[in-house]
């Protein structure tokens, strides 16, 4: 410590005296060595004991700012299958000022993107701008190919794109997203706000739909096959769970490739299932009969005179199949008698008919989350004539969407409960409106079973599944007139009808008769067989067993005495 008490000049003097070993010199060298070894020691300590004390750099860690794909939530089906998601993708752009040989660059790019117009591309590359898009959303292979040819002045910009792994299969239901990242149709549009990320950071839960891609595939395959067989213009297939309103499948053909919208025809973009509005014909008859039964206006034992056509104004109302001069109520439905159901509708009356149609949901756009919905077309109540009452009773003079029919049929056979149709997975059945009495619904199950057992819907039958349903055929309205040759044929059915699990609707737009159908293109010949095939496949998929051992018991429960002739004789 004495050393530190002397001042520095005196130390220098001691140092300057020749031959004298000063204390200072020893201490000085000692401290220098101590200092140097301390530095080495500390450094060694840092490098060995505390390696983290070496400051790291972004470059050393290879940290580059990532492209965070999180601007839109995923959409999944009821089983968690991914239906829509955002994935990272690249877009190619160029800086023409840097490109030295535009024609050479254009040639090379043309080999990678054959769909690009060469002249347009060359003009872009020769432009005086410093930024031109070459192609948005390229594939990883194209990305690699551009990297391989290495054109100076051609760059990539990371971005994200909505991917639809099932492409056409769900194109109408899921819809599409525009370049601005907002939904432009289908679920994407209807749930645009919900699908946008609200929180940054981790991914939010996906939107879970009621759709099942497996069922969707079955419906699309069978519908496509029917369209090909009968040379139809298009078609609709819907499967709904009548016990909660869930739409398990909704197909509208033709459909479209969501990745290639520029080449899609307008007709393919049209969702016939919800946006289409059609006069659907005799599939309306069950609703007329259910209304009249529910209102207590008719009984199953009522028998009507259907011998002659009905002439009203300049219209003639006749039956497609003439069975007998008199038909009982079950037979009117079984043989799809326009004359019979017209009389039932008149007994029901205009006011009640209007009221029931309203409660079935036919007088307002269908209550579902999809944004493309049609407004039903029907005469205003003030101008609702008796002729309207008659024609509407068998599905003419009123236009509704196919989903209207499916949803109303669900309510007709599920105990009379009208659930709002939904495309979202239902955890437990929601609120419903009781539109028919339960006995009416039970009776309708039996009548619809008769149609498949003995009536026009025979071809929808699947052994062991007790299918019930109704056919429908209507002539299309072209330029305000009913066409003689163009028709819409459909079938709406449910299985098993006494304990309905699913309601299935198939509609064919402009089917043509074949040799196999003896030239007929009615719902019973065209749509009913498709429903039968669908039921066979869905039943196996959902492990619904055929009820063979209980057949007699179920047949006895579903039996309806319709043949008044036997009883008379």
């Amino acid at each position, binding site marked *: 410590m004495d050393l530190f008490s002397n001042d520095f000049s005196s130390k220098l003097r001691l140092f300057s005296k020749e031959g004298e070993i000063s204390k200072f010199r020893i201490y000085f060298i000692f401290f220098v060595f101590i200092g140097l070894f301390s530095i080495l020691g500390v450094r060694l300590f840092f490098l060995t004991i505390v390696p983290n004390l070496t400051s*790291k750099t*972004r470059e050393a860690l290879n940290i580059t700012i990532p492209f965070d*794909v999180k601007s839109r939530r995923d959409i999944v089906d009821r089983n968690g299958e*991914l239906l829509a998601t955002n994935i990272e993708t690249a877009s190619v752009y160029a800086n023409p000022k840097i490109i030295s040989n535009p024609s050479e660059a254009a040639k090379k790019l043309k080999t990678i993107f054959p769909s690009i117009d060469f002249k347009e591309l060359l003009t872009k590359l020769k432009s005086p701008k410093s930024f031109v898009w070459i192609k948005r959303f390229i594939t990883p292979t194209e990305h690699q190919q551009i990297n391989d040819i290495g054109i100076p002045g051609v760059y990539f910009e990371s971005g994200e794109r909505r991917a639809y792994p099932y492409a056409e299969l769900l194109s109408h239901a899921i819809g599409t997203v525009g370049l601005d990242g907002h939904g432009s149709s289908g679920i994407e549009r209807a749930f645009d706000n919900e699908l946008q990320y609200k929180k940054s950071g981790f991914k939010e839960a996906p939107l879970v739909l009621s759709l099942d891609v497996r069922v969707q595939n*079955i419906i699309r395959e069978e519908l496509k096959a029917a369209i090909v067989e009968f040379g139809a213009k298009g078609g609709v297939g819907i499967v709904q769970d009548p016990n909660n309103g869930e739409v398990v499948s909704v197909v509208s053909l033709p459909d479209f490739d969501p990745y290639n919208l520029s080449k899609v025809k307008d007709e393919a973009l049209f969702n016939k299932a919800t946006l289409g509005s059609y006069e659907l014909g005799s599939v309306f008859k069950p609703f007329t009969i259910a209304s009249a039964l529910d209102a207590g206006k008719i009984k199953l034992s009522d028998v009507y005179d259907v011998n002659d056509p009905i002439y009203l104004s300049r219209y003639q109302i006749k039956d497609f199949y003439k069975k007998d001069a008199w038909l009982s109520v079950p037979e009117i439905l079984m043989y799809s008698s326009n004359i019979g159901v017209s009389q039932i509708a008149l007994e029901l009356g205009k006011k009640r008919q209007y009221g029931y149609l309203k409660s079935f949901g036919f007088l307002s756009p269908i209550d579902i989350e999809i944004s493309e919905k049609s407004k039903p077309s029907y005469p205003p109540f003030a101008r609702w004539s008796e002729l309207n009452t008659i024609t509407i009773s068998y599905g003419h003079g009123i236009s509704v969407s196919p989903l209207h029919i499916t949803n109303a049929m669900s309510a007709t056979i599920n105990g009379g409960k009208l659930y709002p149709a939904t495309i979202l997975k239902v955890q437990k059945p929601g609120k419903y409106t009781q539109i028919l009495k339960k006995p009416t619904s*039970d*009776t309708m199950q039996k009548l619809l079973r008769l149609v498949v057992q003995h009536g026009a819907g025979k071809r929808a039958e699947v052994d062991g599944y007790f299918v019930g349903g109704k056919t429908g055929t209507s002539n299309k309205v072209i330029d305000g007139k009913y066409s003689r040759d163009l028709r819409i044929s459909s079938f709406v059915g449910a299985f098993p009808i006494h304990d309905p699990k699913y309601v299935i609707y198939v509609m064919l737009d402009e089917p043509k008769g074949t040799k196999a159908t003896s030239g007929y293109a009615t719902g019973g010949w065209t749509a009913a067989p498709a429903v039968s095939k669908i039921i066979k496949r869905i039943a*196996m998929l959902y492990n619904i067993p055929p009820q063979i051992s209980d057949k007699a018991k179920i047949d006895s429960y579903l039996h309806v005495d319709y043949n008044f002739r036997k009883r008379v004789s």
Partner: protein
Amino acid sequence: MFRKPTFLFCVCFFIASFGTLVLKVYVHNLSLDVERMDVERSRISNEIQVLKAEWSYLNNAERISNLAKQHLGLSQVKSEQVKYINQKNAAISAKMEAESSGDGGQVGTNWRYKSRTGILKIANKKEDDQ
């Protein structure tokens, strides 16, 4: 020149400064590690997303069905091929019991013939007259 407290103060100051430096470097490195992991998480998350999309595409029922038919000669099980033992149908039993309590008066006991009346009668009469 340097007294003991001064010396101790210098040592403490040195230790504190050094400690702060060590802490700063440590925190800096940790934050870079977090950043790196975040980048990695984001990259993996993007990759998972792509894989999920590919998985969905590969799971396409139409594709699997075609492959099964083409390579394995498989076809879908038909309802005729299924047999159930001791099948009980609770739904039908409950319904039959409910049925015995009444049909809501919708069936009727005797056949009731309804001739055309009102507008229909008039309409057809007009046609007959023509």
